[in-house]
């Protein structure tokens, strides 16, 4: 199925799988992060209670979002922060553009914000003559490579250090064939320090916003959000409307869960609480809907709005680990991306809920207890009913349902299968059989269970 001109998950994953060594490396690296997560999580005896509390707090937020949004707005305004509302991506981008125009700024530095990726902000601003430089190291690397992030926490996890060395040699003037992470990071530090010191506007994402106090929290390990925001005159913070928490003390629960789930650290290096602007400077918050209020109305799928973007579901997912983030052709990849993306465009992302084995590992590690694998299963049904199911899947399902509903057909096809595997295995052991890729076909049994039972029943 061609859904978007670049191929669906299966064909993009097949491309990724051509480089066997890279797939192994990708798989093992993400699994290593999952193990770090486990090690850290197991030191917290109340971990399961924390997950449950976080889930309940988020459910409360979603059930009373209307009042929390207004409470947050009123408190932020009284703290001296300007609040804007954007119904969709286009309006968000226009607001950012207008703020920069008013400030007479044509260059902006940005820390990590998946929301601005979702809105296509960099491209929009480039069209309007404004240059954006991403300051998170991983995001800067994919920006130089003219690629999208392949993971929400580890944007360039798909790249080898030699490729990053080549990019830095071309753009930052590091020596040729230099691939030492220490040296490359030092080069990026020098390059981006210059950017931080010369940009008058900075945009950051928002990890949490507190209705009770009107403040918002940004978490980074590198310190890039703070370097950008504190050195700029204008700080723009973009947030989805679901990022709210009712009270500040709820952060105690969420900051304990977030980074342990994400990278296996006990907390990010920096958890910055922005309450009021610095003297003579401005903070603007943009509250973005862009489909979230629609998802809120979908009973089966609204829980996906509890997501705190830790990426644990990606690190644990056997499909993500072996297919790479870009195979999801969406801003957010992996299991959570596969339940968020169809909400934005069901047709374009019809293939994603099928890119899963439904093993449930994502649901088990989710720090806010989103029923991810159940939602994947439910999206499949919605997508098939809406007529967007991949054509090969629809055809196979029709054959399956015919065969399974007729005993005669069922026995005949079983016999035929065993005969083929025994006498002409090359008929299925070839590249036209998708199951055969990376797998061997099973040894055929001599007889079916039905035949064996008939024979042995009378004895």
């Amino acid at each position: 199925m061609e859904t978007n001109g670049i191929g669906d998950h299966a064909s993009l994953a097949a491309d990724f799988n051509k480089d066997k060594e890279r797939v192994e490396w990708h798989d093992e690296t993400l699994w290593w992060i999952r193990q770090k997560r486990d090690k850290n999580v197991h030191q917290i005896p109340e971990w399961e209670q924390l997950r449950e509390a976080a889930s309940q707090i988020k459910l409360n937020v979603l059930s009373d979002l209307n009042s929390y949004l207004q409470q947050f707005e009123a408190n932020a305004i009284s703290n001296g922060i300007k609040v804007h509302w954007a119904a969709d991506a286009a309006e968000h981008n226009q607001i950012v553009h207008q703020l920069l125009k008013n400030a007479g700024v044509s260059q902006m530095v940005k820390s990590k914000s998946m929301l601005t990726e979702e809105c296509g902000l960099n491209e929009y601003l480039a069209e309007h003559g404004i240059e954006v430089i991403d300051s998170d190291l991983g995001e800067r690397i994919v920006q130089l490579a003219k690629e999208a992030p392949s993971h929400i926490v580890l944007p360039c996890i798909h790249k080898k250090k030699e490729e990053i060395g080549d990019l830095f040699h071309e753009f930052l003037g590091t020596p040729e064939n230099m691939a030492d992470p220490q040296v490359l990071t030092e080069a990026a530090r020098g390059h981006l320090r210059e950017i931080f010191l010369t940009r008058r506007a900075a945009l950051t994402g928002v990890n949490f916003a507190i209705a009770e106090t009107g403040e918002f929290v940004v978490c980074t390990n590198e310190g890039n959000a703070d370097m950008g925001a504190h050195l700029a005159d204008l700080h723009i913070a973009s947030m989805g409307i679901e990022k709210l928490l009712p009270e500040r003390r709820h952060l105690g629960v969420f900051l304990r869960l977030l980074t342990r789930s994400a990278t296996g650290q006990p907390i990010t290096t920096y958890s910055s609480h922005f309450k009021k602007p610095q003297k003579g400077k401005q903070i603007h918050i943009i509250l973005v809907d862009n489909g979230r209020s629609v998802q809120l109305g979908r009973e089966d799928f609204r829980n996906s709005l509890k997501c705190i973007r830790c990426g644990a579901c990606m690190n644990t997912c056997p499909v993500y680990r072996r297919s790479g983030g870009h195979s999801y052709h969406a801003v957010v990849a992996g299991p959570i991306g596969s339940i968020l993306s169809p909400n934005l465009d069901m047709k374009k992302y019809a293939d994603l809920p099928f890119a899963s084995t439904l093993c449930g590992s994502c649901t088990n590690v989710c720090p806010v207890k989103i029923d991810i694998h159940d939602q994947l299963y439910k999206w499949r049904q919605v997508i098939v009913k809406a007529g967007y199911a991949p054509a090969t899947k629809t055809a196979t399902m029709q054959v399956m349902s015919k065969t399974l509903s007729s005993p005669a057909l069922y026995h005949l096809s079983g016999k035929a299968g065993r005969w083929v595997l025994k006498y002409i295995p090359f008929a299925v052991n070839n590249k036209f059989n998708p199951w055969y890729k990376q797998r061997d076909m099973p040894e055929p049994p001599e007889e079916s269970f039905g035949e064996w039972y008939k024979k042995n029943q009378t004895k």
Partner: protein
Amino acid sequence: MSSREKILLAVSQNQPERVLLPDISLFERKATGTVQKFGAALSSIGGKAYYINDLTEIGIIIAGIPAINGRVVNLVDGLPIKNAENIIYHLAAHDLQNVEWAILKANFGVAENGAVWITEDCMGQRVLPFICQHLAVVINQKDIVPAMHEAYELLSRKPYDYGCFIAGPSKTADIEQSLVIGAHGPRSMTVFILLNE
């Protein structure tokens, strides 16, 4: 209809029946965190803890760190550091770009993760703990709480315009998951814990 009204209307039409907030007081242990746990957590995230009985020990320890040369900003009351600046509020944030060391008072520490909470009034300038090459902070042993729940209880008692939990030096693992200390912020983080106060 403005986008604000549109969004609020759509949200109120689509939000489910009200779910009650859970009781999270059960996570608060009220006991003080141990200094050993704090030190171990800090060293596991790349920081270094020193246990001192008197502020004057800091000068001796710092003098023994070879990297200490260049511009030093010291905002800790009663801490004598030679050739350090003590007043920076009148400067522009950009004027701090060549600060080698910054020494600040932190409000308190968190044992479970090695983080310290620092509010803007301890920073002189918001950018200082980020732009300096090396960061050192001083906390009192009695100001170490066990976990984040107690931390939020404590920080709610003192208003702030900006505050930050800082846990170790700036770091990144974006290149092949190799940990590199010193991404954009400080290359080292030292916490001096005053034992007898």
